[in-house]
């Protein structure tokens, strides 16, 4: 149950129940659908840019608590970044979730994201946590689609 409690911390549960920035964003500059063919989950990420900065990010889709919470967190974590910084942030989060050694977590730096790291003990669920981030990357690169 400890691992489960790590996975489903209150922060995750509340992001799942009341996600931030859920819904279609109109108008938007780019969007992409993240799709996990294993489970059929889909999340579309919408991005509005102002000059080169990410001004607003929203998401909509079907997903489990982990993928929804991750998407919800992401939408506030990347706002204000330019494309390069956003791509770096995506790479950082994916690495935190996937890297072999236990990551050093700094609440001041990672904020709510720290709560997402409980998924590391559940290999079958890591793709749920990375789905929205990969979709954001695909949107920024103009790819329109990411398949997990």
């Amino acid at each position: 149950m400890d691992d489960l409690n790590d996975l489903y911390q209150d922060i995750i549960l509340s992001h799942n129940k009341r996600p931030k920035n859920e819904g279609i964003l109109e108008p938007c500059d780019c969007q992409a659908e993240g799709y996990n063919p294993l489970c059929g989950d889909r999340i579309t990420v919408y991005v509005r840019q102002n000059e080169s900065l990410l001004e607003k990010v929203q998401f909509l889709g079907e997903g489990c608590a982990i993928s929804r919470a991750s998407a919800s967190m992401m939408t506030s974590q990347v706002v204000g970044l330019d494309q390069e910084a956003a791509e770096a942030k995506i790479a950082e989060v994916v690495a935190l979730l996937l890297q072999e050694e236990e990551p050093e977590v700094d609440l001041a730096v990672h904020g709510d994201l720290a709560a997402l790291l409980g998924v590391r003990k559940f290999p079958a669920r890591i793709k749920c946590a990375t789905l929205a981030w990969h979709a954001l990357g695909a949107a920024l690169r103009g790819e329109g689609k990411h398949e997990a």
Partner: protein
Amino acid sequence: MHTTSIPTAFDVTAVRSDFPILDREVHGKPLVYLDNAATAQKPQAVIDAVSHFYAHENANIHRGVHTLSVEATQRYDAARARIAQAIGAPEAREVIFVRGATEAINLVAQCFLKDQLAPGDEILVTQMEHHANIVPWQLVAREKGATVRAAPISDAGEIDLAAYESALNKRTRMVAFGHISNVLGTINPVAEMVRLAKARGIPILIDGAQAVPHGPVNVAALECDFYTFSGHKVFGPDGIGVLYGKADLLNAMPPYQGGGDMIERVRIDESTYRSIPERFEAGTPNISAALGLAAAFDYLESVGWEAIHTQEQAVLQAAMSGLHDMKGVTVYGPQAPRAAVVSFALQGVHPHDIGTFLDQDGVAIRVGHHCAQPLMDRLGVPATTRASFAFYNTAEEVEVFLRSLKKVQGFFS
């Protein structure tokens, strides 16, 4: 060889002891294996049949004059005959060994149907098919300008026979449907579906992947042209499955793959092919798995289909009524009769999250689209949670499953 003494009255504890894996723990809890529709666990008799072959009999078949090769060939042929007898195939040569149901359906699509297809032709499946009974037909349809159509199902998850009948028309070149749905547990009215197609001269394939594990099947009585299933779902090894086909149809079909064993005479510019079953078994087959599959049928028949059915249905009923009593649970598919499979939704909780919670309690269930996305679309959900039972499951295990499910519900409410 291992011999199991089967008690006359069904004794689930004794039967469980035939399956070594059921002693396993997962996350410190006894394994509760409710993912039997994905793959079934293997009794010691099957494990022994496979390892006995490697330990004492291993040789290639149809190739040598030496004793081991002769013995292996005899054992392989005997396995085919045993399986033919188990499924009521009139002749052993009508049982073609393949990798599984998927390969069997691909073989029929490529070798039986493709040459007959013309632009505008139709292949009829149903809305509840596994992808393995959709995509192989799409591949040949696309190549030939034909289309795959799906006969609709009702909200209760049953085939709409009137709609099925009216979908059969002059352009229908093939009808392919599952005997039992891997998601809903629906037992299709196959006799009637066969009758309606036969009356119009349309060839029929039945995907029996989910039927053979639950009861005796008689392909001759079904009067279908082709019947397919996978060994691993019938408590046998993986990498082996069966395509049953009527001998005259099979013998009129071109080979699926070329290679050794399937040829009569090879010249550099042309070859002639053997007749069935060898024609469709190019290369060295999965000999040990064929023996294992025959052992699985021996085992199942020694337990007895009656006993198997009774136990499965008792466990299914316990699960269904437990789910029925829970608030916020939607069960998909017909009330009864149904095979021992139940898919459901728990309001407000995604199947993935349910799957992870149950796993922590040692309960293995399947979550996702179950390789049946058109059915998910029909149900209007991206995924479901599915518990599927075998005769080694118990009422106590259903209790553990339901308790775990209630815990999930409490957690997310």
